[in-house]
């Protein structure tokens, strides 16, 4: 059984999430080149972490669930890194004459 989280915590998390939404909207209007996507994804990742940790109660879940959630996202990261690593590194090596 999880302990009860106070309403104040939920409201504060909601406020942060809303502020982050406006921040990401505002930052997207400014041209920062490559950093636009970096900032947008960093904010999205931060928002996701808050939702998982507080709203989804992983904070108070047992260690097995925590480990499992972490492992799931870690596996997702491996999946994305390997896929993108394949696509982005194509063309780095010149093709040999005999291929």
């Amino acid at each position: 059984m999880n302990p009860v989280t106070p309403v104040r915590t939920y409201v504060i998390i909601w406020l942060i999430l809303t502020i982050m939404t406006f921040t990401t909207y505002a930052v997207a209007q400014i041209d920062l080149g490559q950093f636009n996507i970096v900032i947008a994804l960093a904010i999205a990742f931060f928002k996701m972490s808050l939702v998982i940790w507080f709203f989804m109660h992983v904070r108070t879940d047992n260690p097995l669930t925590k480990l499992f959630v972490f492992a799931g996202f870690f596996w997702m990261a491996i999946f994305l890194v390997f896929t993108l690593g394949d696509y982005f590194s194509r063309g780095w090596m010149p093709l040999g004459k005999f291929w």
Partner: protein
Amino acid sequence: MGQQFDSATFGMWVFLLTEIMFFGGMFGAYTVYRSMYPEAFASTSAYMNPLYGALNTAVLIVSSLTMALAVRSAHLDKQKALQIFLLITMFFGLCFLVIKGFEYHEHWVDMKVPLIGGHWNYSEAPQFAHQAQILFIFYFFMTGFHAIHMIVGLGIMTTIFIMARKGRFSPIYYTPVEVSGLYWHFVDIVWIFLFPLLYLIGHTRTIL
């Protein structure tokens, strides 16, 4: 009961991780195509209205808050508050779908629906016409699958609401509320990533 609660939560997380893989595949494909055609994606994204996107993000975040409060009410045996928070959550879920419907309608009017037998015209920037179709297909599939998840979520919430009215939940047994809350928050998380990736590219004004 504590052990039941833990196993149910754990089981729900197993399901949610399969959902992460499901959406992750689409996010991965999106990233690959976006890296292939960055200019076309940025120029096409101008057809997505970021105000709608931001509004919908805010709506979903509020619904997540009310969902968390509903779970809390069930945990504290506040039956009336549980029902009210569930209704508010469903209301915001419906708001989201209505706004999404308006957006889809705008795309239809703009002739930006490149699905089978579609409604498509991209004469404004013919050099990007093919790549623009790719982005719009990603857009409709990703937001469409998200919308289906929202509709399923509304169905789950209706069931939970009916169960709550019958007084099925107590501080000792409120597992269904908690578990469906997890689902609702997960759908919110998917949107948190869809919003910047679909709406917020290509709206920059150079000021630096």
